[in-house]
C-alpha cells in the first residue's frame, strides 16, 4: 500500500530550485524589454499645476513619456473600488497616473519608458512638476480632527463607518460589577516581500493579444481588470505569475497602476515593456497596514466573566480605498477571539490620510483585533488579581458551531465551526511552563534580571470563498498535471497540492506536477490571500482528483472487464482489489481514455480503431463522457472555517538599557488536520517572524508633512534571523466540518497575536501597562521615566 501523503513531513518540492538560485521571477524574464520608471510625487498633498516633460524627451533611448493626459478610454477612469461595502461613505480611488492632484508621497505622476531602467530614471529626473501645496493629513488624530481634508468629498476624512452589535453591550456594561476602559494604539508596518511588485507586458501584434507576467497575488483578477480597462476581449489577455518572491498581502490589491500602465504601453508601443519596483518605490507606493487607535469599555464580574464589550476604533486607510474596508472589517469581526461574548458592540471609522494606501498585510486586521482583546483580557485579570489564563478560560467558547452574529468579509455570518480552546490552553501552559514561571522569575530577579511572561489567543476566519478550482489531466505517460488558478508567492502549493492529489489518485508524488496562477491553465480563480490557499485549492484539487479517478476506474474497468468498484489504484497501477495480477498502468488507462485514429507512437497504438474489439453499438466516446483522463472541479464553501491558536513568550528587559529580548516563544496552533506539518510550521515560523517585526521593530516613520523618513532597509527595522527567537510549536488538529479534507488555513496564524503576546510579556516584566505597540528600548525607557515620575500607572499586581 502506498504511504498516505497527507500528513507527511515531506520536504518542499519548490526548494531545490529556489534555494539554488534557479527561481525565475518577473525581472528575470523579458530580456531586452523596454523598461519603465515613474516620476512619483515628493509631496504628500498637492495640486499639480504643470508637468514639463520636455527635458526627458531629449534623453537618448527614451521611447515614451506618459502623463494622465495620455491615458485613453477607461484607462483614464479612477482605479476600481474592488470591494464595495455598505459601510463605505466616500469611496475614493486613485488613477493610473495622477490626475490634477497627489495625495501621498510616492503617487505615480509620469511614466517614462526607455531602452533600460537607467535611461528611464535619467529621463525621469529631468521632468519638472509644479505643485500647489495643500495641508497634509498625517496620522489618525489629524484625520479624526478633520480640520484639513484629504479629499473634499470625504468630510471628516471618513471613508467608511460601521457599527455591528449583538446583544446589549452598553446595558450589560452599565450593570456589570466592574468596568474598565482602555485606550490602545498600534502602529503601521508593511509586508515587505523580498521581491517587490513587477510587471512584464507583451503585446502580440499578429493576433492582437496581451500577455502579462505579474508578481500579483491574483492573476485572474489582473486579467479581468486589464481586459476591462484596455477594452480587450478576455480571451486576448493572459496573466501569468512566474516565481514570486513573497506577497504577504501587499500584492493582492489590483490592478496596480503599473499593471494597467504597462499593459497599455505594450499595446501602444507594440513592444515588450517591463517595470521592476525598487525598494524605495515599494515603501512609498505599494501599501502598508496595521495603524489603529482603539477604545475599549468592558464590563465583567468578580470571576472575570465578561458581561459586555463595547469597542470603538479608528483605522488609518491611507490616501485611497481601493481594497474597501476589509482590514477594519476583519478587525471588528475578530475581536471576540476564542471567547463567548454575546453582548458586543463595535464601531469603527476608516479614515483617509495623506499616506500610502492601507491594504491587507498578513493577518489583515486580525493582529489589531487580537491586540485589543488580549490587552483587555490582561487588564481584566490584573484588575481582579487573577491569573491571566484563568480569566481567558472563564470566557472560552465551548460549543460548536458557535455563531457570533457578525457579518464577515465574505458577506456571511461568522460561525466558529470547530475548535478546542481548553486543550489549546492546556498545551500552551505545559509548553511554556506557565505554572513554573513564578519560580523562574524569582531566580532571575535574584540575579538582577527582569523577565516577564505574556500570552495571546486568537481565532482566524480562513478559507473564505467564493471558490477555487482544480484541473487535472493524466498524460499517457502517467504524469499527472494539476492546475489551480490561485497564485503562489513562494508557499508550498507544489508540495501540498501534489500530496493531496497523489493520495486520491494513488500515484507517486514524483509523478504529480502543479501549476498555479496561470490564466492559460485555469481561468477561474479568486486569488491567494486570507489563509485560503490550502483550504480552497486543496479541496478543489481533491474533488477534481476524485472525479478523474472515477473516470480512470471506469475506463480501466471496461478494458479489464471488471466492475470499477472492484478496482483500486496503487503506485500508479490500476488493479483489481485482491487480485493484483489483473492490472493496468494508469498511463495505459490514459491512452485508452482517448480513442485515436492516428498511432503517433507505440503506446498510442493501443487506443486506435483496430487495436481491440469494440462495441459497435456505441460511439467511441459515450454521450456524457469526454476524451482523456482530464477534468476540473471547484470547491465553494458555504462560509469560512475558523482556525485558532495561542502563543506565549518570555521576555527579558534590561533594567538599565531597557533593551528587550525574547527568551522563549511558544505556539500552539490548530488548523485542523495538517497536510504537511513541516509546511505548517514553516508558515508559523515566518508568521511569528513578521509578528516580532511588528511588535518590536517596525514602524512607518511619517513626519507631519507626510514624508516617510525610514523608506529603506537601513531605517525600517525588519528583523533579521538573529532577532527572531527559536519558535517552539505544538499542534492540535480539530477537523473542520465544512470541507471534505477537514482543513483550516494556516498562512496568517503566526503573525496574528504576536504584538499582543509581546505587550503582555513586557508589561509583566515591567509592572506597568503597555498600550502602544511596537515598543522599542528607547520607548520603554521613556515609559519607565514616566512611571517613576508618577505619570504612568502601575499594574495592580505590581
Amino acid at each position, binding site marked *: 500500500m502506498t504511504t498516505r501523503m497527507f500528513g507527511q513531513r515531506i520536504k518542499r518540492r519548490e526548494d531545490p530550485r529556489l534555494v539554488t538560485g534557479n527561481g525565475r521571477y518577473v525581472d528575470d524574464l523579458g530580456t531586452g524589454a523596454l523598461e519603465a520608471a515613474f516620476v512619483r510625487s515628493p509631496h504628500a498633498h498637492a495640486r499639480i499645476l504643470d508637468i514639463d516633460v520636455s527635458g526627458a524627451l531629449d534623453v537618448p533611448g527614451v521611447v515614451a513619456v506618459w502623463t494622465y493626459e495620455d491615458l485613453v478610454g477607461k484607462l483614464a477612469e479612477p482605479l476600481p473600488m474592488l470591494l464595495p461595502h455598505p459601510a463605505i461613505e466616500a469611496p475614493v480611488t486613485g488613477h493610473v497616473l495622477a490626475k490634477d492632484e497627489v495625495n501621498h508621497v510616492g503617487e505615480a505622476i509620469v511614466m517614462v519608458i526607455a531602452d533600460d531602467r537607467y535611461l528611464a530614471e535619467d529621463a525621469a529626473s529631468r521632468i519638472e512638476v509644479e505643485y500647489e501645496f495643500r495641508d497634509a493629513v498625517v496620522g489618525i488624530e489629524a484625520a479624526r480632527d478633520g480640520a484639513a481634508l484629504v479629499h473634499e468629498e470625504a468630510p471628516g476624512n471618513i471613508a467608511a463607518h460601521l457599527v455591528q452589535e449583538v446583544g446589549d453591550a452598553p446595558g450589560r456594561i452599565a450593570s456589570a460589577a466592574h468596568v474598565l476602559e482602555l485606550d490602545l494604539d498600534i502602529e503601521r508596518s508593511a509586508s515587505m516581500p523580498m521581491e517587490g511588485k513587477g510587471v512584464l507586458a507583451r503585446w502580440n501584434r499578429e493576433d492582437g493579444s496581451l500577455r502579462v507576467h505579474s508578481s500579483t497575488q491574483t492573476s485572474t483578477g489582473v486579467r479581468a481588470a486589464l481586459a476591462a480597462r484596455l477594452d480587450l476581449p478576455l480571451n486576448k489577455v493572459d496573466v501569468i505569475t512566474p516565481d514570486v518572491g513573497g506577497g504577504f498581502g501587499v500584492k493582492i490589491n489590483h490592478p496596480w497602476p503599473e499593471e494597467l500602465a504597462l499593459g497599455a504601453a505594450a499595446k501602444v508601443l507594440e513592444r515588450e515593456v517591463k517595470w521592476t519596483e525598487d525598494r524605495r518605490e515599494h515603501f512609498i507606493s505599494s501599501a502598508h497596514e496595521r495603524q489603529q487607535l482603539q477604545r475599549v469599555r468592558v464590563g465583567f464580574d468578580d470571576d472575570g466573566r465578561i458581561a459586555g464589550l463595547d469597542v470603538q476604533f479608528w483605522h488609518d486607510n491611507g490616501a485611497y480605498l481601493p481594497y474597501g474596508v476589509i482590514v477594519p472589517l476583519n478587525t471588528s469581526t475578530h475581536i471576540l477571539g476564542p471567547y463567548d461574548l454575546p453582548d458586543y458592540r463595535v464601531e469603527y471609522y476608516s479614515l483617509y490620510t495623506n499616506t500610502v494606501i492601507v491594504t491587507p498585510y498578513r493577518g489583515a486586521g486580525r493582529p489589531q483585533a487580537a491586540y485589543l482583546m488580549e490587552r483587555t483580557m490582561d487588564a481584566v485579570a490584573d484588575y481582579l488579581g487573577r491569573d491571566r489564563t484563568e480569566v481567558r478560560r472563564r470566557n472560552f467558547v465551548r460549543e460548536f458551531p458557535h455563531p457570533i452574529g457578525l457579518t464577515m468579509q465574505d458577506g456571511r455570518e461568522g460561525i466558529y465551526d470547530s475548535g478546542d480552546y481548553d486543550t489549546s490552553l492546556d498545551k500552551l501552559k505545559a509548553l511554556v511552563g506557565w505554572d513554573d514561571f513564578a519560580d523562574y522569575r524569582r531566580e532571575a530577579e535574584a540575579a538582577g534580571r527582569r523577565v516577564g511572561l505574556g500570552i495571546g489567543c486568537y481565532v482566524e476566519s480562513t478559507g473564505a470563498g467564493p471558490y477555487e478550482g482544480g484541473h487535472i489531466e493524466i498524460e499517457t505517460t502517467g504524469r499527472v498535471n494539476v492546475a489551480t488558478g490561485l497564485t503562489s508567492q513562494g508557499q508550498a502549493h507544489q508540495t501540498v497540492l501534489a500530496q493531496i492529489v497523489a493520495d486520491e489518485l494513488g500515484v507517486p508524488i514524483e509523478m504529480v506536477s502543479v501549476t498555479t496562477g496561470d490564466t492559460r491553465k485555469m481561468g477561474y480563480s479568486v486569488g491567494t490571500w486570507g489563509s485560503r490557499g490550502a483550504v480552497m485549492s486543496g479541496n478543489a484539487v481533491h474533488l477534481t482528483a476524485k472525479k478523474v479517478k472515477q473516470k480512470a476506474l471506469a475506463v480501466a474497468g471496461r478494458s479489464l472487464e471488471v466492475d470499477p468498484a472492484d478496482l483500486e489504484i496503487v503506485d500508479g497501477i490500476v488493479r483489481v482489489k485482491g487480485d493484483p495480477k489483473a492490472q493496468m498502468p494508469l498511463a495505459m488507462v490514459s491512452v485508452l481514455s482517448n480513442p485515436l485514429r492516428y498511432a503517433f507512437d507505440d503506446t498510442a497504438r493501443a487506443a486506435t480503431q483496430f487495436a481491440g474489439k469494440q462495441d459497435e453499438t456505441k460511439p467511441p466516446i459515450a454521450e456524457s463522457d469526454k476524451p482523456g483522463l482530464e477534468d476540473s472541479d471547484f470547491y465553494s464553501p458555504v462560509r469560512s472555517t475558523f482556525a485558532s491558536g495561542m502563543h506565549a513568550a518570555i521576555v527579558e528587559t534590561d533594567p538599565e538599557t531597557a533593551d528587550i529580548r525574547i527568551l522563549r516563544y511558544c505556539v500552539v496552533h490548530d488548523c485542523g488536520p495538517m497536510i504537511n506539518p513541516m509546511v505548517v510550521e514553516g508558515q508559523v515560523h515566518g508568521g511569528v517572524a513578521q509578528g516580532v517585526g511588528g511588535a518590536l521593530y517596525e514602524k512607518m516613520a511619517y513626519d507631519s508633512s507626510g514624508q516617510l523618513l525610514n523608506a529603506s532597509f537601513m531605517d525600517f527595522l525588519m528583523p533579521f534571523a*538573529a532577532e527572531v527567537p527559536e519558535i517552539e510549536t505544538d499542534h492540535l488538529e480539530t477537523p473542520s466540518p465544512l470541507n471534505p479534507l477537514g482543513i483550516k488555513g494556516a498562512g496568517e496564524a503566526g503573525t496574528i497575536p504576536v504584538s499582543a503576546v509581546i505587550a503582555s510579556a513586557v508589561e509583566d516584566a515591567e509592572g506597568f501597562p503597555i498600550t502602544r505597540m511596537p515598543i522599542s528600548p528607547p520607548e520603554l525607557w521613556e515609559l519607565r521615566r514616566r512611571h517613576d515620575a508618577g505619570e504612568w500607572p502601575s499594574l495592580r499586581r505590581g
Partner: protein
Amino acid sequence: MKPAPLTCHSPTTLDEAVRLLHDLGPEAKVIAGGQSLVPVLNMRLATPAHLVDITGLPGLDEIRVSAEAVEVGALVTHRRLEQDDAAHAALPLLRQALVNVAHPAIRNRGTTVGSLAHADPNGEMPMILALTGGSVTAASVRGERTITASELFVGPMETVLEPDEILVSARFGRFAEGTRTAFTELTRRSGDYALAGAALALQVSDGQLRTARMGFVSVTELPDALDLTELVAGRPASTSADIAEAVVERVTEHIAPESDIHATADYRRHLTGVLARRLLTELTADIPARGAA
C-alpha cells in the same frame, strides 16, 4: 535606484590613480569596497561624473604590525582585519570593534580605510582610529602626507581630505603595556548602526588604574576620544565602582547625542552612561583588591 550616468576608471598604479583624480577634479570619487558609496549613488544622493576604482592598485592590501602600530592598507577589508591574528594580538581593540561593523557580508567587501574616509560618527572604526591616537596617509599628485585622527575628522562625514587625495593606509596606534580594552554598543538589530556605543582603553598596573581613554559611537559630532586619565590615575582598580559616577558624568558632558527616528537624545545620553559604566566594570572585574590573595 539606478545611479546617474558616470564613467568608471580602473587605474593600475597609484601614480595613475592620483593623476586621474587630479585631472578629473571634484567630479570624481574614489571607490574601493563601495559599501557606503554605492547605495548613495543608487539613490542618486550623489551624482559624481567619475569613479576611480582603486581595487586594482598594487601594494594597498597589506596589514603590517610594528611595535607602535597596526598599519592597514586601503584595500584591506573589515573582515580580513578582523580575522588577522597578528593584528589582534597587537591591538585586540580592532577585532573587538570590527565584529560590530554591520554584517559579515558587508565586512567582506567594505574596507576599514574606506570607512575612515567616509568619516561617519555612527561608524565604529573612525572612533577606533581616534581612540588609538592613529593617523592616516593620503596620496595625491603632490605626494603623500600623514594626517592624525584629530586632524582628519572635521564634521559628520567630513574630513580634511582634498578631492584629489586617496587614503592609502591607516595606522592604528598600539596601547602602552598593561592596557586593557573593551568595546560595547547597543543596536536595534544585529549589525545596525548603534543607538550608542563606546570603547575603553584602560591602563592598569599593580592593581592601580593609570590612564583611561574612551571613544564613542553615534553620540558625538566627530569621531573622537575622551581622556579620562585624571579621574582614574592612581585609583585602585577595585574601587572602579566608586569612580564610575564621575566617569559617567564626564562622559555625558562630553557627548552630544541627537534625536532621530530610532532614539531620543535623552535615551542615547542615558545609554552611553550605562555603557561607560559597564566598560569600566568589565575591565576591572577580574582585578583583585589590593592585599587580597
